[in-house]
Structures are given as structure tokens and as C-alpha cells.
């Protein structure tokens, strides 16, 4: 029996009897409410242990009321009792109960539903300016890569460290380059390749995001470094008249992967910008707002890179012609553009 249940039923005789034995008024106050505190403590401990299912409905319904009773007990106790141990217990319990009562608003599946049902798209749209900035940087990086390699082909080795057996070097023949784009349908080990690409690219994009913390500058460098390689590759294949073929080869996964790179770069720049120019907010406030907003986008980026890894590992090797490759790449691009910029505009969930 407890104070709350006593509102509706007879008074708890045992607690009252115990309380009457106490000679101090503050101890009587405590003894009358102790049952509620212990009940709350038991519920909180259960929830902390992760077993919400093991809690009875009565207890779950009573939790908010028990928490408020505790809060009021603590306020009264602070003004009336000098029992340090009891005060410390109440403060500790209030803190633990606060975390439980004001815990995460939604569970994992609720969060997923919100994420796919418009949360992700809305977060991407909120980065509009940063996405455009990153896109500009990426285009500039590609052009720079192309121009540098065109002016002096030694640059190629600086961007793409030569690996033994890689036919993709300046001066390679048309046949060698063509061979690197087509005729790999019989290859095994595709899934391993896909998994490797996924984990590598995800690590790069996470780094791209994290480096935003250093005011975004390393993020920009990382984006440039990746797109300069793209420019160099394009130049190489252009020299042998394979421009469209290489674009097709890249676009299968590239539209998804480069989109993901663009988003992670935008996230990094967004954080860097918020920290460098916080405006009316404190730097800490600005940084944490930017961080929470971009975290949603970054979760999506990792998912996109899983898709890109699958496309790169399987689809690109299995589709052995330029036109269908371009179609797959184009379709993916259209899908992402639709999902981010047209989907969930009206009923956007936060």
C-alpha cells in the first residue's frame, strides 16, 4: 500500500503505526511515503534492466504519478529534513526516475518509421545550402583533376597511387581500358568485393562528417581528394574515346555513392559552418543543433552506401553494356532526388 493507493482506499495502518513510533516529524513524513519511493525504485530498476514487458500494467500506469509524488516529496524534504542520507537517496532516485520518465520518445521501430517516412528526407532538405556548396566543390574537384592530369600526366600517379597489375595508367591502350570496363560477368567473389566497398566507403563518409568538427575544412579537402580522382579517371578514358562507357560504368553505383559523398560532405560543412558562425547561439548550442540534424542524414548515408556497395559489387559486373548501366544509374539518381526532394513534403514528421 502506498500514498497513492491510499487516496482511493483505507489508510495503510502499518505505515501509520510505524510512523507514529518515530519521534521526529521529518521521519514520520518519510515513513508515510517510503512505500511509494520503494515501489518507484523497483519499477525504475526494472526499466533500466531493459525488461519493460515484465512490469505490470498497474505499475506502468502508476509510474508518472509515483514520479511526481517523489518530486513533491523531495521538494518538501529539502525544506523540512536534515537527514542527509534520505535526501541523497531521494535526489538519486529522482534523477534515475527522470531518465526513465523522460527517456527517448520513441522506440527503435517508431524511430525507423519516422526516419523512412519523411524524417530522413526532411533532414536532407534542411541542408539545402550546404548540399549546393558541396556539389560545387565536387564539380570543381572533378574539373581540377581533369585539368591537372591533362596538363601533365604525372599528376595521375599522385591522385591514383599505381597498383601493380592495374591497367588504368596514362598511355594505356584502348583495348586495355575497354577490358577494364567490360567482360567481368564470370568473375566470382562479387559479394566479398561489395562488402569491402561498403565498409570502406562508409568509413570515408563517416570521417567526412566527423571532420566537420574541425570547422569543416578537412571535410572540404576530403571531398576534393575524392573527386579529383574522378576527374583523372574521366580524362584517362576520354583519351581513348571511352567517355560514355566509363560514365556508364561509374554511374551504376556512382550516382548513389557520389550522392552519399555529397550528403556526408554537406553534413560536415553544416557542422563546420555552425561552429564557425554560430550567430546568436553559443558555439556549443550551435554545434549540438547541427550535430543532431545531420546525424539523421548520416544514418541515411550509411544505408545509401550499402546500396551503392551492392550495385558496385553485383550490378556493375553483371550488366555488361553501357546503355543498361546508364539506365540503372539514372534510375537510382532519379529515385534519390524524388525521395529527398519530393517525398514527404506535406506530412513531414518533425
Amino acid at each position, binding site marked *: 500500500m502506498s500514498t497513492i493507493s491510499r487516496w482511493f482506499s483505507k489508510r495503510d495502518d502499518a505505515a501509520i503505526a510505524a510512523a507514529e513510533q*518515530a519521534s521526529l516529524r521529518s521521519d514520520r513524513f518519510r515513513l508515510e511515503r517510503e512505500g511509494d519511493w*520503494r515501489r518507484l*525504485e523497483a519499477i525504475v530498476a526494472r526499466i533500466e534492466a531493459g525488461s519493460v514487458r515484465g512490469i505490470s500494467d498497474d505499475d506502468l500506469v502508476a509510474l508518472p504519478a509515483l514520479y511526481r509524488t517523489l518530486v513533491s516529496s523531495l521538494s518538501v524534504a529539502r525544506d523540512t529534513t536534515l*537527514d542527509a542520507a534520505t535526501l541523497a*537517496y531521494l*535526489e538519486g*532516485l529522482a534523477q534515475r526516475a527522470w531518465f526513465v520518465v*523522460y527517456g527517448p520518445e520513441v522506440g527503435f521501430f517508431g524511430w525507423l518509421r519516422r526516419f523512412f517516412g519523411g524524417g530522413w528526407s526532411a533532414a536532407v532538405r534542411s541542408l539545402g545550402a550546404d548540399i549546393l556548396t558541396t556539389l560545387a566543390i565536387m564539380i570543381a574537384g572533378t574539373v581540377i583533376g581533369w585539368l591537372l592530369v591533362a596538363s601533365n600526366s604525372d599528376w595521375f600517379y599522385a591522385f591514383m597511387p599505381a597498383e601493380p597489375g592495374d591497367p588504368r595508367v596514362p598511355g594505356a591502350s584502348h583495348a586495355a581500358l575497354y577490358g577494364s570496363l567490360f567482360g567481368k560477368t564470370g568473375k566470382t567473389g562479387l559479394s566479398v568485393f561489395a562488402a569491402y566497398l561498403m565498409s570502406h566507403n*562508409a568509413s570515408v563518409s563517416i570521417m567526412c562528417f566527423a571532420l566537420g568538427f574541425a570547422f569543416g575544412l578537412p571535410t572540404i579537402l576530403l571531398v576534393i581528394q575524392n573527386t579529383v580522382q574522378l576527374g583523372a579517371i574521366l580524362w584517362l578514358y576520354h583519351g581513348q574515346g571511352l567517355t560514355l562507357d566509363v560514365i556508364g560504368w561509374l554511374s551504376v553505383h556512382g550516382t548513389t555513392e557520389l550522392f552519399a559523398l555529397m550528403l556526408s560532405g554537406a553534413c560536415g560543412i553544416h557542422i563546420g559552418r555552425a561552429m564557425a558562425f554560430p550567430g546568436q547561439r553559443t558555439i556549443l548550442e550551435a554545434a549540438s*543543433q547541427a550535430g543532431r540534424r545531420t546525424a539523421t542524414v548520416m544514418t541515411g548515408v550509411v544505408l545509401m552506401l550499402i546500396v551503392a556497395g551492392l550495385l558496385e559489387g553485383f550490378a556493375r559486373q553483371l550488366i555488361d553494356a553501357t546503355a543498361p548501366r546508364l539506365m540503372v544509374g539514372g534510375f537510382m539518381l532519379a529515385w534519390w532526388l524524388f525521395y529527398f526532394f519530393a517525398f514527404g513534403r506535406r506530412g513531414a514528421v518533425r
Partner: protein
Amino acid sequence: MARWKRPPRKRQSSKERRGRVILTAEGLRLPLTLASRGSRVGALLIDLTLAFMTVLLTGVTLVYVARGLGMDHVKQTSPGVRHMFEALQVLWIIALFVVPNAWFLWFELGARGATPGKRLLGIRIAARPARDGSATRLTAEAVIARNLLRNMELFMPALFIGSAISVGADSTLAGWTALVWFGIFALFPFLNRDALRGGDVIAGTWVVEVPRRKLGAAMSLGQSAQGVSQVTGAHYRFSQAELAIYGEYELQVLERVLRDASKSQPKALQDVAQAICTKIGWSSGAGDERAFLEAYYTQLRARLETGMRLGTRKADKHDG
């Protein structure tokens, strides 16, 4: 005239320095204690060890399965087995990526807001309060953000320091610059008051201690609290003048001594009883300290709490 000299600052204990107050929606001022940097490093080491063991265990299991399927000589076996082998390789790559990245995320998203390492050391993550001190909720986004930065803070500096050591004295200026640059991120928690690491800054979180206090017994129950000794049957009654000597600070010291269950308690009881007797001019006997102190504690607390209700408080013996 040494007027410009600042008065000596009261030295705070480490625990006091880490104390913060948040204001809940109910208007309650809730004290928190930030986790010490030492316990955070400890928790991190435990987590890294556990995550490493998980990866290792996965690897050993995969190798065991591969052996069991007779994959020692992949080239000579059938395509079916080769596909299985490929699947195992994929699982391995995924485990290498997922375990270190998801370990912290998964556990911190739970109701305890703590990884196993943090749980062991009694700390958890929480959202930093808003500028006016009002408490805010921990969100999934915040947990994701704080863990995405771990790569940059932990693995990159480790990589750079590793490469700096392997290159030795020949490392370039660029190498050293990078080392310092990443060193700043790695040492970030030591450079601010709230021990925030980069991830905490980005996510708006901090790490706090989880209180684990049991409710102690009520002190004013039973005969001895009424002033009647169980041992000798003596009645202890103190006059208001005898109680007026001490304040709240001394009351709490006395409470600690009475609640203390360690071996040193009898000695402490004797010392405190002796001190009080000297102060109030009683001649102290031996053997009945506990009853004496419980009686004194209860009566002093009654007096101070009455004063409290009337709005007069006495902080310690020097006060008022």
C-alpha cells in the same frame, strides 16, 4: 594595504567541482555529478576490449565453420562450397565494420544510456541542459552523432601516432602537424570544464554518474532515539543551551558516524561522544556512547528542523 589580494578561494573537492544542477519540467532542481575523466577512460578501455573480443570471437567462429565445411583447400572444392566461403568472408567484413561502429550506438540507445563499460563504472550519457539550465531529453539523433565522431577522435589519432612512431625521427613536418591536430581532438575532454569530448559537443550530451544509493534506516525510531538507553536504562535529556552549540554541519557528521557500519565505528563513536561531552560540560562515561549519541542526534535534529520550519537555519557551530 593588501586590499587587492583576493581572499583565498575555498578549495573544492573533485566531486564538488563536478557537481551540476538541472531544472526539470516540474520545477525541481536536480543535482548531477559529471563522470570523472578517469572513469570515462576506464569505461572506454573496457568497451574497446569487449568489442575486440566480440570481433575475435566472430572470427574464430567463422574460421571454425570454414574448417568444418572442409574449406582448407578452396580451389579444389565444388562451387557450392566456394559460395559458402564467400558468404563467410562477407560476414567477416561486415563484422569488422559493424561491431566497432554499432557497439556504442546499440547500448547507448537503450534505457540505461550506457555501454557495458559505462554500466560497470556507474556512469551514463545524458543530454546537456539548455542555456537556462532546463533539462532536455536524450534523442536517438544525439546518440548517433556522438558516436559518429568517435572515428575521428580515437582511430585517426591512433593511426597517426602509430605512423609517427613507425617513421621515427624522420617524420616530416606535415606528419607532426597532423599529430598535433589530431592530438587536440583526442585530448579535447581535458581542455574543457564539463569534460566534453568532440562527440559530446556535436551531440549536446555529457556523461554523468548514476546514483546508486539505498534508503538508510530512519534514525528517530526506537527507545534510544527517545533518549532512553537500552544498555543502562539512563535517560538522556539535553537542554536547549546544550543543543544550541552545534549546527547542521555537525549534525550531518554525527549522522555519518551513526550510519557508518565499518570496523572503525566504535572508535569514532567514542571520539565524537568525548568531544560533545567536553563541549557541553558533561562527564563522559564509557560503554553507552551509542545511546548517548543517538539521543543527542535526535534532539539536535528536532531543534534544528523546528528552526528550519520557522525560517532560521544554523549552518555550523560558527554560525549565528
